[in-house]
């Protein structure tokens, strides 16, 4: 119910993995039909906005664009208050939080409050900790994530491919820890295996040394 994701604020992997896990959990719980229309609360404190940026409407998954409510809190205390109020609200699908660093307000007691609220009301909380040390917390699952080199796209091998992450589950209550390489293909989260190699050949042949015009003349 309450998960923490540790990420660097110089990449958007934390928020991206939180979104992917949230969508995955909603789809798995079979409540997608009923929860589809529900809003998603995204809480950021000021440091997280300054260092990691705000969510961009056109970059969000298409089904989330019209049901996102964003809360810009000034202090970590306000952000924690907003997270707790969000967890108490029955009309939300899930709550995503982003808090930068290790503020004093986010103590073990505060995280315990969040866990209890999430469990009592049955709403998932995904808390992204930007540039934070993994201190004491009562989160049920704790992830560490960083960006991975993306697979080469089929049509333009020189371009960045779809989002891929190295995700490490380093503490979980009901699951052994592990490491995965995850990618978010077409809105579904799945592990990338070694056999899942990119296309064996490039469909776009490089024109080395000769331009198309020269080739036509020859």
């Amino acid at each position, binding site marked *: 119910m309450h998960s923490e994701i540790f990420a660097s604020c110089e990449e*958007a992997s934390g928020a991206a993995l939180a979104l992917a896990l949230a969508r995955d959990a909603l789809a798995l719980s079979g409540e997608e039909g009923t929860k589809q229309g529900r809003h998603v609360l995204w809480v950021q404190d000021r440091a997280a906005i300054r260092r990691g940026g705000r*969510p961009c409407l056109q*970059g969000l998954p298409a089904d989330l664009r019209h049901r996102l409510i*964003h809360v810009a*809190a*000034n202090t970590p205390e306000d952000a924690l208050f*907003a997270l707790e109020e969000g967890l108490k609200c029955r009309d939300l699908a899930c709550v995503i939080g982003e808090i930068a660093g290790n503020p004093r307000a986010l103590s073990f007691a505060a995280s315990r409050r969040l866990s209890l609220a999430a469990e009592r009301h049955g709403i998932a909380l995904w808390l992204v900790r930007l540039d934070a040390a993994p201190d004491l917390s009562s989160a049920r699952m704790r992830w560490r994530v960083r960006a991975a080199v*993306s697979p080469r796209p089929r049509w333009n091998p020189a*371009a960045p491919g779809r989002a891929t992450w190295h995700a490490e589950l380093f503490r979980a209550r009901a699951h052994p820890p592990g490491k995965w390489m995850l990618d978010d293909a077409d809105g579904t989260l799945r592990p990338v295996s070694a056999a899942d190699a990119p296309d064996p050949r490039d469909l776009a042949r490089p024109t080395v040394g000769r331009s198309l015009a020269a080739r036509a003349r020859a």
Partner: protein
Amino acid sequence: MLLADARVLCPQLAVAPSDPAGDLAALEKLALWAQRWGPWSALDPPDGVLVDVTGAAHLFGGEDALLTDVSCSFARQGLTVRAALAPTAGAAWALAHFAPAGTILVPDEDPLPLLADLPVAALRLDEDVLTVLRRLGIKRLGELAGVSGIGDDPQHEAAARDALRRRFRGRHSPAANPLLRLDQLLGKVPEPLLPVLARPQPMVQRRLLEPIRHRNLLDRVVRDLAEDMVRALEARGEGARRLELGLWRVDGEVLVRRIELAAATREADHMIRLFATRLDDVEAGFGIEVIQLRSSWSEPLALSQADLDSAAERHGTSLAACVDRLAVRLGTRAVTRPVARASHIPERAQGWQAPFDPLPPVQGMLPFNVRPLKLFDRPEPIAVLYASPDGYPQRFRWRGAVRDVVRVEGPERIAPEWWRERSTARLRDYYRIEDETGRRYWIYRQGLADDGRGGMPEWFLQGLFA
């Protein structure tokens, strides 16, 4: 004449800025206040009020006494007034503007002798119609009244009226047609007026025998007020969107606490909870003697059937209540939702608005314009190494670390919005890049090296991809 010129001529000139909206609001209040003389009143902007006193004059001791009362009441307020009384609104307007003050037109007497000397401007006509009439030689109402069908020679009058009607035959608006206005003035044609109706705001208050100085008593009174307010709103079938709590202290100080709600509500508990956080800084002083709760903005809210079974099992708050609680503590600007705006510039293509405001219509987004997941409020400047000034970036420094660019896609060129920006604004070439650790960024080069709009182009990092 300019104000500066006027001040040179007369240095002791007093200047006040014009405030048409404020004047209209004041006139509206005046019209409501003027309903003391009759059951309804109408505005006559910019400076008039029409009151219907039909059958009400005897309450003031006759029509003369009524007009005296009107002028006395206005004089007590420090306002100069020209009042007149007539059977039709048009005649009353004409007398008030162009006759001696206090003129009364009695219903059964012939109106024309009294009105014949008034200028045609008394008909409330447009400027250009007045010009036409002046050129025709018609300056007084009496001259126009020759065509009204009341005179001695019906044959001649009918012909003259016909000529005038033909001249103004295309004009259907009363202000452009003198015949229509004349008939309205004489009461032959009805003239509908738009009355001013007072809509009292739902308001409840408690006057306290003993001034209260303690918080728990204040909470108790606020709870009573909220319950009264819920009843008042229920009777009107409305829900509150904005609530104002006024606290009158013994020493005459008034404290006002105002909350705005995201959706119309009629829940006493919700109101109390929102006010509870706003009452922490109330200084009671020697005590609070009057507490008033007013809903200055309410919206229709249908009565709903309380569901006895599901109320117990559905715990938690509704989304509107959650947004209200957040907005009261964090400020209304903090709780928003992103909306698309009509612009190509990425920071302008997205706006933030209140969560329950209706979404503005927008054109669909093009799926091949890939946008990052996170966007910085201000693009961060980066130092870029490149092979050629308009080529791909090869290495860049951001936040103190040097990153190699391994993969690039671009440029996506976004031209400046010439209808909004200065002509020296530079275009942007956006690149999606990935560094050797797999981090994906969205960077742009502002301008071209040879576009003549500044020196070498600068590079910025604007967003982070998932």
